[in-house]
Protein backbone atom coordinates (compact mmCIF):
# COMPACT_ATOMS: atom_id res chain seq x y z
CA UNK A 1 0.00 0.00 0.00
CA UNK A 2 1.48 3.37 -0.98
CA UNK A 3 2.12 6.11 1.55
CA UNK A 4 -0.27 8.47 -0.24
CA UNK A 5 -3.10 5.90 -0.04
CA UNK A 6 -2.57 5.58 3.73
CA UNK A 7 -2.70 9.38 4.04
CA UNK A 8 -5.96 9.51 2.06
CA UNK A 9 -7.51 6.76 4.22
CA UNK A 10 -6.57 8.66 7.39
CA UNK A 11 -7.92 11.96 6.07
CA UNK A 12 -11.21 10.30 5.07
CA UNK A 13 -11.55 8.41 8.36
CA UNK A 14 -11.38 11.76 10.15
CA UNK A 15 -13.42 13.87 7.71
CA UNK A 16 -16.37 11.54 7.04
CA UNK A 17 -17.44 11.03 10.70
CA UNK A 18 -17.21 14.80 11.20
CA UNK A 19 -19.80 15.27 8.43
CA UNK A 20 -21.92 12.15 9.05
CA UNK A 21 -22.57 11.69 12.78
CA UNK A 22 -22.43 8.14 14.17
CA UNK A 23 -23.39 9.04 17.74
CA UNK A 24 -21.30 6.36 19.46
CA UNK A 25 -21.97 6.37 23.21
CA UNK A 26 -19.16 7.68 25.41
CA UNK A 27 -18.40 6.69 29.02
CA UNK A 28 -16.83 8.70 31.81
CA UNK A 29 -13.63 7.30 33.34
CA UNK A 30 -12.87 7.57 37.05
CA UNK A 31 -9.87 9.86 36.38
CA UNK A 32 -12.11 12.47 34.75
CA UNK A 33 -14.86 11.97 37.32
CA UNK A 34 -12.30 12.70 40.06
CA UNK A 35 -11.52 16.14 38.54
CA UNK A 36 -15.24 16.88 38.25
CA UNK A 37 -15.91 15.89 41.86
CA UNK A 38 -12.90 17.83 43.14
CA UNK A 39 -14.23 21.02 41.53
CA UNK A 40 -17.87 20.28 42.31
CA UNK A 41 -17.27 19.91 46.03
CA UNK A 42 -15.62 23.34 46.38
CA UNK A 43 -17.66 26.05 48.09
CA UNK A 44 -18.72 28.92 45.85
CA UNK A 45 -16.18 31.72 46.09
CA UNK A 46 -13.28 29.27 46.46
CA UNK A 47 -10.26 30.13 44.36
CA UNK A 48 -8.99 27.85 41.60
CA UNK A 49 -5.64 28.53 39.96
CA UNK A 50 -5.57 27.49 36.30
CA UNK A 51 -2.11 27.34 34.77
CA UNK A 52 -1.88 27.22 30.97
CA UNK A 53 1.32 25.23 30.62
CA UNK A 54 1.23 24.47 26.91
CA UNK A 55 2.12 25.63 23.44
CA UNK A 56 -0.05 26.45 20.45
CA UNK A 57 0.77 23.12 18.79
CA UNK A 58 -1.65 21.25 21.07
CA UNK A 59 -4.49 23.76 20.80
CA UNK A 60 -7.11 21.33 19.37
CA UNK A 61 -6.67 19.11 22.44
CA UNK A 62 -6.09 21.79 25.04
CA UNK A 63 -8.90 24.19 24.18
CA UNK A 64 -11.86 21.79 24.66
CA UNK A 65 -10.44 20.58 27.99
CA UNK A 66 -9.76 24.07 29.32
CA UNK A 67 -13.16 25.31 28.17
CA UNK A 68 -15.02 22.43 29.82
CA UNK A 69 -13.19 22.81 33.13
CA UNK A 70 -13.58 26.61 33.18
CA UNK A 71 -17.29 26.32 32.37
CA UNK A 72 -17.67 24.07 35.39
CA UNK A 73 -15.70 26.50 37.58
CA UNK A 74 -17.76 29.53 36.56
CA UNK A 75 -21.00 27.59 36.81
CA UNK A 76 -20.06 26.68 40.40
CA UNK A 77 -19.31 30.39 41.04
CA UNK A 78 -15.67 29.74 41.79
CA UNK A 79 -13.03 32.45 41.43
CA UNK A 80 -10.41 31.72 38.80
CA UNK A 81 -6.81 32.94 38.73
CA UNK A 82 -5.18 32.20 35.36
CA UNK A 83 -1.53 32.25 34.44
CA UNK A 84 0.90 30.67 31.97
CA UNK A 85 4.22 28.98 32.56
CA UNK A 86 4.92 28.57 28.84
CA UNK A 87 4.89 31.69 26.66
CA UNK A 88 2.37 30.43 24.10
CA UNK A 89 -0.06 29.48 26.84
CA UNK A 90 -0.38 33.21 27.55
CA UNK A 91 -2.39 34.24 24.48
CA UNK A 92 -4.39 31.01 24.46
CA UNK A 93 -5.08 31.01 28.20
CA UNK A 94 -6.10 34.67 28.27
CA UNK A 95 -8.55 34.19 25.38
CA UNK A 96 -10.12 30.96 26.64
CA UNK A 97 -10.50 32.45 30.11
CA UNK A 98 -12.01 35.71 28.80
CA UNK A 99 -14.39 34.00 26.34
CA UNK A 100 -15.62 31.46 28.91
CA UNK A 101 -16.04 34.18 31.53
CA UNK A 102 -18.11 36.20 29.04
CA UNK A 103 -20.44 33.19 28.55
CA UNK A 104 -21.21 33.28 32.29
CA UNK A 105 -21.27 37.07 32.60
CA UNK A 106 -18.60 37.15 35.30
CA UNK A 107 -16.40 40.20 35.85
CA UNK A 108 -12.68 40.61 35.35
CA UNK A 109 -10.95 41.49 38.57
CA UNK A 110 -13.88 40.40 40.74
CA UNK A 111 -14.43 36.80 39.63
CA UNK A 112 -11.38 36.05 37.57
CA UNK A 113 -8.00 37.44 36.67
CA UNK A 114 -5.24 36.56 34.22
CA UNK A 115 -1.74 37.12 35.56
CA UNK A 116 0.27 36.47 32.38
CA UNK A 117 3.47 34.56 31.76
CA UNK A 118 6.43 33.76 33.99
CA UNK A 119 9.54 31.97 32.72
CA UNK A 120 11.65 29.58 34.83
CA UNK A 121 8.72 27.51 36.07
CA UNK A 122 10.67 26.06 38.99
CA UNK A 123 11.13 29.54 40.48
CA UNK A 124 7.61 30.65 39.53
CA UNK A 125 5.87 27.65 41.16
CA UNK A 126 8.00 27.93 44.32
CA UNK A 127 7.67 31.70 44.48
CA UNK A 128 3.87 31.56 44.40
CA UNK A 129 4.00 29.29 47.41
CA UNK A 130 5.33 32.25 49.40
CA UNK A 131 3.79 35.31 47.74
CA UNK A 132 1.94 35.45 44.41
CA UNK A 133 2.18 39.26 44.29
CA UNK A 134 5.95 39.05 44.38
CA UNK A 135 6.03 36.64 41.43
CA UNK A 136 3.37 38.63 39.54
CA UNK A 137 3.50 42.28 40.66
CA UNK A 138 1.01 43.07 37.83
CA UNK A 139 -1.59 41.16 35.85
CA UNK A 140 -1.51 40.64 32.06
CA UNK A 141 -3.11 44.08 31.56
CA UNK A 142 -0.35 45.70 33.64
CA UNK A 143 -2.70 46.46 36.54
CA UNK A 144 -0.91 46.13 39.90
CA UNK A 145 -2.31 43.08 41.75
CA UNK A 146 -2.87 45.22 44.85
CA UNK A 147 -5.58 47.06 42.87
CA UNK A 148 -7.40 43.89 41.75
CA UNK A 149 -10.25 42.97 44.14
CA UNK A 150 -9.96 39.17 43.70
CA UNK A 151 -6.24 39.30 44.53
CA UNK A 152 -6.63 41.26 47.76
CA UNK A 153 -7.52 38.13 49.71
CA UNK A 154 -5.03 35.88 47.95
CA UNK A 155 -1.47 35.79 49.22
CA UNK A 156 -0.17 32.34 48.33
CA UNK A 157 -1.27 28.70 47.89
CA UNK A 158 -2.91 28.78 51.34
CA UNK A 159 -5.70 30.86 49.78
CA UNK A 160 -6.12 28.60 46.76
CA UNK A 161 -8.29 25.49 46.88
CA UNK A 162 -7.14 23.74 43.75
CA UNK A 163 -4.48 24.10 41.05
CA UNK A 164 -5.38 22.90 37.56
CA UNK A 165 -2.46 22.51 35.18
CA UNK A 166 -3.61 22.54 31.55
CA UNK A 167 -0.48 21.12 29.98
CA UNK A 168 1.02 19.49 26.90
CA UNK A 169 4.32 18.48 28.42
CA UNK A 170 5.66 17.41 31.79
CA UNK A 171 4.83 20.65 33.61
CA UNK A 172 2.36 18.85 35.91
CA UNK A 173 5.36 16.90 37.25
CA UNK A 174 6.95 20.23 38.25
CA UNK A 175 3.71 21.18 39.97
CA UNK A 176 3.86 17.87 41.86
CA UNK A 177 7.53 18.37 42.76
CA UNK A 178 7.22 21.93 43.99
CA UNK A 179 3.60 22.83 44.80
CA UNK A 180 2.16 19.48 45.93
CA UNK A 181 5.18 18.18 47.85
CA UNK A 182 6.37 21.41 49.40
CA UNK A 183 3.11 23.33 49.88
CA UNK A 184 0.62 20.43 49.99
CA UNK A 185 -1.49 21.88 47.17
CA UNK A 186 -4.27 19.90 45.58
CA UNK A 187 -3.55 19.41 41.88
CA UNK A 188 -5.77 18.34 38.99
CA UNK A 189 -4.37 17.92 35.50
CA UNK A 190 -5.78 18.40 32.00
CA UNK A 191 -3.16 17.13 29.60
CA UNK A 192 -2.70 16.03 26.01
CA UNK A 193 -3.24 12.31 25.50
CA UNK A 194 0.42 11.81 24.60
CA UNK A 195 1.44 12.73 28.17
CA UNK A 196 -1.41 11.02 30.03
CA UNK A 197 0.20 7.61 30.61
CA UNK A 198 3.15 9.31 32.34
CA UNK A 199 0.98 10.76 35.09
CA UNK A 200 -0.65 7.57 36.40
CA UNK A 201 1.99 7.05 39.14
CA UNK A 202 1.10 10.49 40.54
CA UNK A 203 -2.62 9.76 40.28
CA UNK A 204 -2.16 6.49 42.09
CA UNK A 205 -0.11 8.19 44.83
CA UNK A 206 -2.78 10.87 45.32
CA UNK A 207 -0.39 13.63 44.21
CA UNK A 208 -2.80 14.38 41.38
CA UNK A 209 -6.48 14.36 42.24
CA UNK A 210 -7.70 13.62 38.73
CA UNK A 211 -6.72 13.63 35.08
CA UNK A 212 -8.28 14.68 31.80
CA UNK A 213 -6.43 13.04 28.91
CA UNK A 214 -6.79 14.84 25.58
CA UNK A 215 -9.90 15.23 23.43
CA UNK A 216 -11.46 12.11 24.99
CA UNK A 217 -11.02 13.64 28.46
CA UNK A 218 -12.67 16.83 27.20
CA UNK A 219 -15.58 14.82 25.74
CA UNK A 220 -16.10 13.05 29.08
CA UNK A 221 -16.03 16.33 30.99
CA UNK A 222 -18.50 17.89 28.54
CA UNK A 223 -20.84 14.97 29.31
CA UNK A 224 -20.51 15.60 33.05
CA UNK A 225 -21.26 19.32 32.81
CA UNK A 226 -23.93 18.62 30.16
CA UNK A 227 -22.45 21.12 27.71
CA UNK A 228 -21.50 19.41 24.44
CA UNK A 229 -18.49 20.97 22.76
CA UNK A 230 -15.55 20.25 20.51
CA UNK A 231 -14.60 17.15 22.51
CA UNK A 232 -17.85 15.26 22.00
CA UNK A 233 -18.09 16.40 18.37
CA UNK A 234 -14.70 14.80 17.65
CA UNK A 235 -15.27 11.40 19.29
CA UNK A 236 -16.81 9.66 16.27
CA UNK A 237 -13.84 10.69 14.12
CA UNK A 238 -11.46 9.59 16.86
CA UNK A 239 -13.10 6.14 16.99
CA UNK A 240 -13.12 5.60 13.23
CA UNK A 241 -9.54 6.77 12.82
CA UNK A 242 -8.31 4.50 15.64
CA UNK A 243 -10.07 1.60 13.92
CA UNK A 244 -8.40 2.53 10.64
CA UNK A 245 -4.94 2.53 12.24
CA UNK A 246 -5.61 -0.83 13.94
CA UNK A 247 -6.67 -2.27 10.57
CA UNK A 248 -3.49 -0.89 9.01
CA UNK A 249 -1.37 -2.52 11.74
CA UNK A 250 -3.17 -5.85 11.26
CA UNK A 251 -2.84 -5.61 7.44
CA UNK A 252 0.87 -4.83 7.80
CA UNK A 253 1.42 -7.85 10.06
CA UNK A 254 -0.63 -10.22 7.89
CA UNK A 255 1.40 -9.12 4.86
CA UNK A 256 4.64 -9.59 6.81
CA UNK A 257 3.79 -13.14 7.91
CA UNK A 258 2.48 -14.14 4.47
CA UNK A 259 5.76 -12.97 2.90
CA UNK A 260 7.72 -14.84 5.56
Amino acid sequence: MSRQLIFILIALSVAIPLVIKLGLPNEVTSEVMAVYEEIDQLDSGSVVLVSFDHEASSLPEIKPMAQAVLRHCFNRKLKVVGLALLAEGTAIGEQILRQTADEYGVDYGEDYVFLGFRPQYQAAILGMGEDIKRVFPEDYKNIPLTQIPIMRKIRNYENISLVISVADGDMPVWWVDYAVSRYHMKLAVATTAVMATSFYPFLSAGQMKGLLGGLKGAAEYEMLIKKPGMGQRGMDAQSVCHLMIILLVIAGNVGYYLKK
Partner: protein
Amino acid sequence: MHTGTLIAAFLTLCIFSFLYKDNPFYKFAEHLLVGVSVGYVLVIALNTTLMPKLLNPVFKEGRFDYIIPGILGLFMLLRFFPKYAWLSRISIALIIGAGAGVAIPATLQAKIFAQMQATMINFASVDGIIVFAGIATTLAYFFFSKEHKGWFGTSARVGTWFLMIFFGATFGYTVMSRISLLIGRMQFLLGDFLHVIK
Protein backbone atom coordinates in the same frame (compact mmCIF):
# COMPACT_ATOMS: atom_id res chain seq x y z
CA MET B 1 -15.50 35.14 5.42
CA HIS B 2 -12.96 36.81 7.70
CA THR B 3 -9.55 37.56 6.22
CA GLY B 4 -8.03 35.84 9.26
CA THR B 5 -9.84 32.58 8.49
CA LEU B 6 -8.72 32.73 4.85
CA ILE B 7 -5.10 33.28 5.84
CA ALA B 8 -5.23 30.56 8.50
CA ALA B 9 -6.77 28.14 5.96
CA PHE B 10 -4.12 28.99 3.34
CA LEU B 11 -1.30 28.45 5.83
CA THR B 12 -2.90 25.22 7.08
CA LEU B 13 -3.04 23.90 3.51
CA CYS B 14 0.58 25.03 2.93
CA ILE B 15 1.66 22.80 5.83
CA PHE B 16 -0.55 19.89 4.74
CA SER B 17 1.04 20.13 1.27
CA PHE B 18 4.11 18.45 2.81
CA LEU B 19 2.11 15.20 2.76
CA TYR B 20 2.53 15.22 -1.02
CA LYS B 21 6.18 16.23 -0.90
CA ASP B 22 8.49 18.99 0.31
CA ASN B 23 7.63 22.12 -1.70
CA PRO B 24 8.05 25.92 -1.66
CA PHE B 25 4.63 26.49 -0.03
CA TYR B 26 5.58 24.26 2.88
CA LYS B 27 9.02 25.86 3.20
CA PHE B 28 7.44 29.31 3.19
CA ALA B 29 5.02 28.35 5.97
CA GLU B 30 7.72 26.56 7.96
CA HIS B 31 10.08 29.55 8.02
CA LEU B 32 7.27 32.00 8.68
CA LEU B 33 6.15 29.85 11.61
CA VAL B 34 9.60 29.81 13.20
CA GLY B 35 10.08 33.57 12.79
CA VAL B 36 6.64 34.46 14.13
CA SER B 37 7.00 32.04 17.08
CA VAL B 38 10.38 33.46 18.07
CA GLY B 39 9.00 37.00 17.83
CA TYR B 40 6.01 36.02 19.94
CA VAL B 41 8.14 34.59 22.75
CA LEU B 42 10.36 37.67 22.77
CA VAL B 43 7.45 40.11 23.02
CA ILE B 44 5.67 38.14 25.74
CA ALA B 45 8.90 37.77 27.72
CA LEU B 46 9.67 41.49 27.46
CA ASN B 47 6.14 42.73 28.10
CA THR B 48 5.06 40.43 30.87
CA THR B 49 8.33 39.63 32.62
CA LEU B 50 11.16 42.05 31.97
CA MET B 51 8.98 45.12 32.48
CA PRO B 52 7.25 44.20 35.76
CA LYS B 53 10.08 42.12 37.22
CA LEU B 54 13.12 44.26 36.35
CA LEU B 55 12.53 47.59 34.60
CA ASN B 56 9.61 48.81 36.71
CA PRO B 57 11.24 47.97 40.08
CA VAL B 58 14.49 49.69 39.10
CA PHE B 59 13.23 52.74 37.21
CA LYS B 60 9.80 53.35 38.78
CA GLU B 61 10.20 52.11 42.34
CA GLY B 62 13.90 52.83 42.82
CA ARG B 63 14.62 49.22 43.88
CA PHE B 64 18.29 49.31 42.99
CA ASP B 65 18.93 45.83 44.43
CA TYR B 66 17.28 44.53 41.25
CA ILE B 67 20.27 45.85 39.30
CA ILE B 68 22.20 42.73 40.40
CA PRO B 69 19.99 40.20 38.54
CA GLY B 70 19.82 42.75 35.70
CA ILE B 71 23.61 42.68 35.40
CA LEU B 72 23.65 38.89 35.68
CA GLY B 73 21.06 38.82 32.88
CA LEU B 74 23.19 41.11 30.73
CA PHE B 75 26.10 38.70 31.31
CA MET B 76 24.07 36.17 29.33
CA LEU B 77 24.17 38.48 26.30
CA LEU B 78 27.98 38.61 26.55
CA ARG B 79 27.96 35.11 25.06
CA PHE B 80 28.11 36.90 21.71
CA PHE B 81 31.47 38.51 22.62
CA PRO B 82 34.13 35.77 22.93
CA LYS B 83 36.39 37.82 25.21
CA TYR B 84 33.69 38.24 27.86
CA ALA B 85 31.61 35.13 27.15
CA TRP B 86 32.86 33.43 30.34
CA LEU B 87 30.84 35.91 32.45
CA SER B 88 27.63 34.26 31.22
CA ARG B 89 28.74 31.14 33.10
CA ILE B 90 28.18 32.97 36.39
CA SER B 91 24.51 33.54 35.50
CA ILE B 92 24.09 29.97 34.28
CA ALA B 93 25.82 28.71 37.45
CA LEU B 94 23.33 30.61 39.61
CA ILE B 95 20.30 29.13 37.85
CA ILE B 96 21.78 25.61 37.69
CA GLY B 97 23.02 25.69 41.30
CA ALA B 98 19.81 27.10 42.79
CA GLY B 99 17.76 24.70 40.65
CA ALA B 100 19.81 21.74 41.84
CA GLY B 101 19.43 22.90 45.46
CA VAL B 102 15.64 23.00 45.36
CA ALA B 103 15.42 19.82 43.29
CA ILE B 104 16.97 17.54 45.92
CA PRO B 105 14.30 17.70 48.66
CA ALA B 106 11.48 18.04 46.11
CA THR B 107 12.57 14.96 44.19
CA LEU B 108 13.07 12.95 47.37
CA GLN B 109 9.55 13.76 48.49
CA ALA B 110 7.67 13.58 45.18
CA LYS B 111 9.42 10.88 43.20
CA ILE B 112 10.89 8.60 45.85
CA PHE B 113 9.06 8.68 49.20
CA ALA B 114 5.54 9.35 47.89
CA GLN B 115 5.90 6.75 45.12
CA MET B 116 7.30 4.09 47.48
CA GLN B 117 4.62 4.85 50.04
CA ALA B 118 1.84 4.51 47.45
CA THR B 119 3.32 1.17 46.35
CA MET B 120 3.47 -0.24 49.86
CA ILE B 121 0.02 1.01 50.95
CA ASN B 122 -1.65 -0.91 48.12
CA PHE B 123 0.63 -3.95 48.44
CA ALA B 124 -1.93 -6.36 49.93
CA SER B 125 -3.79 -7.09 46.68
CA VAL B 126 -3.12 -8.87 43.39
CA ASP B 127 -2.73 -5.55 41.58
CA GLY B 128 -0.50 -4.30 44.40
CA ILE B 129 1.83 -7.27 43.97
CA ILE B 130 1.89 -6.77 40.19
CA VAL B 131 2.78 -3.10 40.70
CA PHE B 132 5.54 -4.00 43.16
CA ALA B 133 6.92 -6.62 40.77
CA GLY B 134 6.73 -4.13 37.89
CA ILE B 135 8.68 -1.46 39.77
CA ALA B 136 11.33 -3.88 41.07
CA THR B 137 11.93 -5.52 37.69
CA THR B 138 11.90 -2.19 35.79
CA LEU B 139 14.55 -0.87 38.19
CA ALA B 140 16.49 -4.12 37.71
CA TYR B 141 16.46 -3.57 33.95
CA PHE B 142 17.96 -0.08 34.37
CA PHE B 143 20.61 -1.29 36.84
CA PHE B 144 23.73 -1.75 34.74
CA SER B 145 26.32 -2.19 37.52
CA LYS B 146 25.50 -5.91 37.67
CA GLU B 147 25.53 -8.21 34.66
CA HIS B 148 22.05 -9.22 33.50
CA LYS B 149 22.55 -12.97 34.15
CA GLY B 150 20.84 -15.64 36.28
CA TRP B 151 17.94 -14.57 38.53
CA PHE B 152 18.89 -10.92 38.06
CA GLY B 153 18.83 -11.32 34.28
CA THR B 154 15.37 -12.94 34.53
CA SER B 155 14.14 -9.99 36.64
CA ALA B 156 15.50 -7.54 34.11
CA ARG B 157 13.79 -9.51 31.32
CA VAL B 158 10.45 -9.32 33.15
CA GLY B 159 11.17 -5.60 33.55
CA THR B 160 11.29 -5.26 29.77
CA TRP B 161 7.79 -6.78 29.56
CA PHE B 162 6.46 -4.12 31.89
CA LEU B 163 8.28 -1.49 29.88
CA MET B 164 6.76 -2.86 26.66
CA ILE B 165 3.31 -2.58 28.23
CA PHE B 166 4.06 1.04 29.15
CA PHE B 167 5.39 1.81 25.67
CA GLY B 168 2.39 0.11 24.06
CA ALA B 169 -0.03 2.17 26.17
CA THR B 170 1.94 5.32 25.41
CA PHE B 171 1.91 4.50 21.69
CA GLY B 172 -1.88 4.08 21.84
CA TYR B 173 -2.21 7.44 23.56
CA THR B 174 0.23 9.10 21.15
CA VAL B 175 -1.89 7.95 18.21
CA MET B 176 -4.94 9.31 20.04
CA SER B 177 -3.22 12.65 20.62
CA ARG B 178 -2.07 13.15 17.03
CA ILE B 179 -5.47 12.20 15.65
CA SER B 180 -7.12 14.69 18.03
CA LEU B 181 -4.90 17.41 16.56
CA LEU B 182 -5.89 16.35 13.05
CA ILE B 183 -9.57 16.38 14.06
CA GLY B 184 -9.08 19.94 15.31
CA ARG B 185 -7.60 21.08 12.02
CA MET B 186 -10.27 19.22 10.00
CA GLN B 187 -12.97 20.87 12.12
CA PHE B 188 -11.42 24.21 11.20
CA LEU B 189 -11.16 23.44 7.47
CA LEU B 190 -14.59 21.79 7.14
CA GLY B 191 -16.32 24.14 9.59
CA ASP B 192 -14.88 27.65 9.83
CA PHE B 193 -13.43 27.64 6.30
CA LEU B 194 -15.74 25.54 4.09
CA HIS B 195 -18.88 25.58 6.29
CA VAL B 196 -19.56 21.89 5.50
CA ILE B 197 -20.03 21.11 9.21
CA LYS B 198 -21.45 23.23 12.03
